């Protein structure tokens, strides 16, 4: 993937090795835009039986050029397990070059979704349109992720022992991010202390997508959702996705939650069976701060690596501002003590 001119031939040879008697011809190959963390490309393939398929390739950037480091091996295992469970609408993961020997970098080959991202669809609506059925459709898709039986993922993803220990561990990641960064980050110490002092009611631990936002939801031509980009997924508190969606969409709108916060959460409770004691505006605010840590810490790691001369590239420099977006949300979510106005 690092040399697109070689890719049609390399991809065809790779597919031949993994497709039994069929032989592939790659009729087109082009880099895709829109992905931040991984290299993406789209390939049209004609098989020698006359059928055609379109694939998406999702591979690692060159060493020292990634804005975040995640495991393709883990992502492939998760995609395979989720595909076998058939519980979440998502494109099928078809092939994996686990060494990079064939495609130039570790690379997962997925079915292409014929459609557009939900972000692209929403961008065509005006703010006063109400965005049709998209707010509730989005909730339903998120709830489908959170209804997955995680016992089937136990061999793939780490399963925390209990909710309280899990949340404390998540909070401690703020302190760890501060301790390992190239300079002091007082925001992280503040938010960690605030979150520890204000833990909400627990929920059962579930599959968390961890980057649940409209650019990672594809809308097919018949209006169905397909969830993509599972590289940060883990088993945790499902409200992490609610909070993350809220903060992401506050920075890159529209924020469908803010159109009708109570209605959004009521639909989510209805679809998941969770109670109002655990899913409400207060817990939404809490998880809007807490959930940021997964992506935030990855971006901060990239920034720290750049400060030490170990990383480079426009994605790292450009996404530094996402840290400031995180700080804005931390200060908004971690409310001051009574009588304070800051």
């Amino acid at each position, binding site marked *: 993937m690092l040399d697109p001119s070689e890719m049609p031939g390399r991809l065809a040879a790779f597919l031949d090795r993994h497709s039994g008697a069929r032989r592939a011809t790659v009729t087109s190959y082009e880099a895709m835009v829109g992905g931040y963390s991984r290299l993406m490309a789209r390939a049209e393939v004609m098989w020698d039986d006359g059928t055609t398929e379109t694939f998406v390739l999702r591979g690692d950037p060159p060493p020292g050029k990634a804005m975040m480091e995640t495991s393709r091996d883990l992502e492939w295992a998760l995609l395979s397990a989720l595909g076998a469970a058939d519980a979440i609408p998502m494109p099928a993961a078809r092939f994996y070059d686990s060494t990079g020997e064939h495609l130039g970098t570790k690379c997962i080959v997925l079915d292409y979704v014929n459609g557009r991202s939900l*972000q692209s669809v929403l961008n065509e609506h005006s703010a006063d349109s109400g965005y049709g059925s998209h707010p509730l459709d989005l909730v339903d898709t998120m709830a489908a992720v959170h209804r997955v039986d995680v016992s089937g993922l136990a061999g793939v993803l780490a399963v925390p022992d209990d909710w309280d220990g899990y949340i404390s561990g998540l909070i401690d990641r703020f302190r760890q991010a501060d301790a390992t960064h190239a300079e002091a980050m007082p925001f992280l110490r503040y938010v960690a202390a605030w979150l520890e002092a204000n833990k909400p009611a627990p929920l059962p631990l579930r599959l968390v997508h961890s980057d649940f936002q409209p650019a990672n939801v594809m809308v097919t031509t018949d209006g169905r959702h397909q969830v993509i980009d599972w590289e940060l997924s883990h088993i945790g508190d499902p409200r992490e996705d609610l909070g993350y969606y809220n903060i992401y969409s506050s920075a890159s709108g529209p924020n469908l939650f803010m159109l009708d916060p109570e209605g959004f959460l009521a639909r989510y409770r209805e679809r998941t069976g969770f109670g109002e004691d655990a899913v409400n505006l207060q817990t939404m605010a809490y998880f809007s701060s807490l959930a940021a840590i997964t992506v935030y810490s990855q971006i901060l790691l990239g920034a720290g690596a750049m400060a030490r001369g170990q990383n480079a590239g426009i994605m790292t420099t450009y996404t530094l501002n996402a840290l400031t977006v995180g700080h804005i949300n931390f200060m908004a979510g971690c409310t*001051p003590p009574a009588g304070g106005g800051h």
Partner: protein
Amino acid sequence: MLSRPTTEQLILDCRNELLNTIDPAVAAEPVKIAIQMLENVLRNCATRAAHEIAWMRDETEQMIAFAHRVADSACATPAIAGALDAYRAGRSDSLHLDDVAHTYSLAGHCFSAAIDAVMAAGDDDLHLAAREVLTTRLEHETQIMGEWSFVGRA
């Protein structure tokens, strides 16, 4: 050295060249997105070049003042005293950027230790005072960020 035009002006001129000369000549979508990102980074750099030394010095004073206030209160901890010792031993009055950033980070560690102590003690007045310092820091970050969104994510 030449101080006029300022570094901020030079960077903004590069940004204009990028937008008005290079971008129109480019058709490839991935490159156009990279140009939008570069434009944003150049704006960030221009603002930092114009203000970052003054802002870091101002914040350093605020953070150290807060740490001393907490160290002199019932919330005092050995961690604050240790961080202040490290600050005194490592701080510099030099205005070279690396030196200012180093002193700023040492002050940040003092501030963080003080935040830990205040939050653990549940002192609301000092909690509010800490938020004021954080708010100043955030105002500076926000000015650097300017208008920003996830370019090309659709």
